[in-house]
């Protein structure tokens, strides 16, 4: 009996071994050359400072998030233009611990550059330092790594640009004259308050003299509260022509309120939103235009910046200037950041080009 049991066990073990053994080494011959091909030219290219054969890695906060997938499209576009390879990989969940594990594996492979949207600006500093000490340039985008842990950061937008574009949009929509209101997030939200200040400054300009900002209300970034506040605005101000909502929750709720109240064409909603969430309202005319930075451009610019540093065109110091393909020329600011530029306006003409 003992013999039989030992034999059976042996068979089982061999079965397991064969399963692991046959798949892994069997895959190896196809895999190994691929790795070798990628690695070898990269090593050769390093001293030559060619951009042609570099491999960069584009790391989002987490995989499977449409916003980051869109950013990757831009990164791949830049890669094709530059003739470099850009790999898209990251943690399964948007979590710093896992992101660091991913980054460590990438540093270990000796990739040529890292472009990262950080889950935790401080926690990634030691990892970023480690990468830079190993000769791997680091650029952060979307969410910054704190200074000291990266060569440069690509900033999606500045507060003034965001304020200005929203006033321009509302002015276009209401024909340059009439009452408007702002539906914000919470009354203490620092981003929104800063943007609203810039909007007010912009509205003081003579070309907006006929526009009257009647009130600012707060929907607390809750869908139902924002919806009710929007209905309240339309009841209180029957002549209201425009609502600016500088928050993704508020803008969708306000557009829905305008639709439900059958005021499409009389009251126009604009502000900051995402294409997938606003598509319906752009098409119905409740919110014909809204703005946000284009994540694809953000990814595109980050790869150009990374390539400029990795190939030694620039050092990544404040004041350095580099070319970024279709986006033009950029300069690194005093704090090591690069500003993407004015937000992108989404409307009926371009909304179907975006999926995030």
């Amino acid at each position: 009996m003992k013999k039989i049991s030992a034999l059976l066990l042996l068979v089982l073990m061999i079965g397991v071994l064969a399963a692991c053994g046959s798949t892994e080494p069997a895959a190896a011959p196809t895999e190994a050359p691929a790795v070798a091909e990628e690695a070898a030219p990269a090593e050769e290219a390093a001293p030559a400072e060619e951009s042609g054969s570099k491999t960069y890695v584009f790391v989002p906060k987490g995989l499977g998030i449409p916003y980051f997938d869109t950013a990757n499209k831009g990164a791949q576009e830049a890669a094709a233009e530059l003739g470099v390879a850009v790999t898209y990989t990251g943690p399964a969940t948007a979590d710093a611990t896992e992101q660091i594990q991913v980054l460590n594996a990438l540093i270990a492979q000796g990739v040529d550059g890292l472009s990262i949207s950080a889950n935790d600006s401080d926690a990634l500093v030691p990892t970023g330092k480690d990468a830079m000490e190993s000769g791997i340039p680091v650029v952060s985008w979307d969410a910054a790594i704190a200074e000291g842990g990266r060569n440069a950061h690509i900033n999606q937008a500045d507060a003034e640009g965001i304020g200005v574009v929203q006033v321009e949009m509302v002015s276009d929509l209401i024909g340059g004259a009439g009452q408007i209101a702002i539906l914000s997030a919470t009354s203490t939200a620092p981003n929104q308050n800063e943007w609203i200040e810039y909007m007010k400054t912009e509205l003081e300009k003579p070309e907006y003299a006929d526009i009257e900002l009647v009130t600012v209300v707060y929907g607390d970034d809750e869908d139902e509260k924002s919806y009710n506040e929007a209905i309240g605005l339309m009841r209180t101000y029957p002549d209201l022509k425009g609502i600016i909502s500088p928050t993704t929750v508020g803008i969708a709720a306000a557009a829905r309120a305008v639709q439900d109240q059958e005021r499409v064409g009389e009251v126009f909603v604009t502000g900051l939103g995402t294409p997938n969430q606003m598509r319906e309202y752009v098409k119905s005319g409740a919110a014909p235009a809204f703005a946000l930075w284009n994540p694809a451009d953000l990814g595109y610019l980050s790869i150009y910046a990374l390539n400029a540093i990795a190939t030694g065109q620039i050092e990544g110091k404040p004041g350095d200037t580099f070319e970024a393909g279709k986006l033009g020329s950029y300069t690194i600011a005093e704090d090591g950041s690069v500003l993407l530029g004015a937000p992108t306006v989404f409307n009926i003409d371009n909304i179907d080009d975006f999926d995030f």
Partner: protein
Amino acid sequence: MTSKQSLGDFFKRWEWLLVLLIFLVTIVNARLTPYFLDTRNLMRATSDFMELGLMMLPMVFIIITGNIDLSVASMMAMCASLMGWLHMQGTNIWVAMAAALLLGLLAGFLNGYLVARVKLPSLVVTLGTFAFYRGMAYALLGDQAARGYPESFTFLGQGSIGSIRFPFSAVLFIIFAVIFSLILYKLKFGRYLYVIGNNEEAGFYAGVNVVRTKLLIFMMSGFMSALAGIVLAARFGSTRPDIGTGLELAVITAVVLGGVSISGGSGTMIGAILALVLIGEMRFGMGLINIPGQGQNIVIGFLLILSILIPHVGRELTSGNVKVNKAMVGKTAVALIMIALFAIFFFWSRTLLIA
């Protein structure tokens, strides 16, 4: 378990399969990428798993007694947050660290008291404290991060020893692994854990102080979670209340993969440590060939199911009275299908990479 202790039985142990798998994974990894067998890289990867390892040691004790502690990652976050908060109030970092360890003991005591004294099921108790302790972490720090730790402190997580850069956190882990192994194998306390896991009532009548034993293991868990939190804070150079979210499941996975029975009564410390090494090697190896996180989770998940299935089928096959019946064939088929799926997944993920 059979009474006869033959050579066959010795090699039948789950630990040997783990050793074999580690060996295999090492060879495959080394063949697949030239970066795997690089001391610096291996050391860097090691430090990624040390917090998990520190929390795993007391978890082995808890699961051997047939209990579970789901609150480890939450305790870790709470204790690290307290330390960060105290540090930001101007408290000396070492005092803050001591306070964090004390809070860990206290949090573990609360778990242990409810489980051992009030006799509530540990799954429910720690599911409750899992939410409660995480909430406390947010209450302490809100959505901000504690930062600015002195360099003498961040050495705990970032420091390394010698020219091969052996991480300091790994030294810490080895010290505690030895201590916990000695407790399990050399002290009566360790024997009691198995007794409680096999038959708590019988243990009680045999004179085992069940309440005190359980209380102690949950306190150990709290203490080690606090220590893990301190190491993690030191490695990150900052503390956020959301650190280590979901880590409790990774800890339990390592313990179960190590052959510790989830229903209690059996399992070894060396098995759990081997499983930790295996998971670490596999994750690092898969990371090196750029298999994304979700893919890694699929592989680890399959491995976990196989780790319960194979010994189960193996035991039945070797139990002496092999009868070919439907249930037996079914189980073997399931095992084989799992292995096949595992293989297919590997092929599939590799082809993706090449493309």
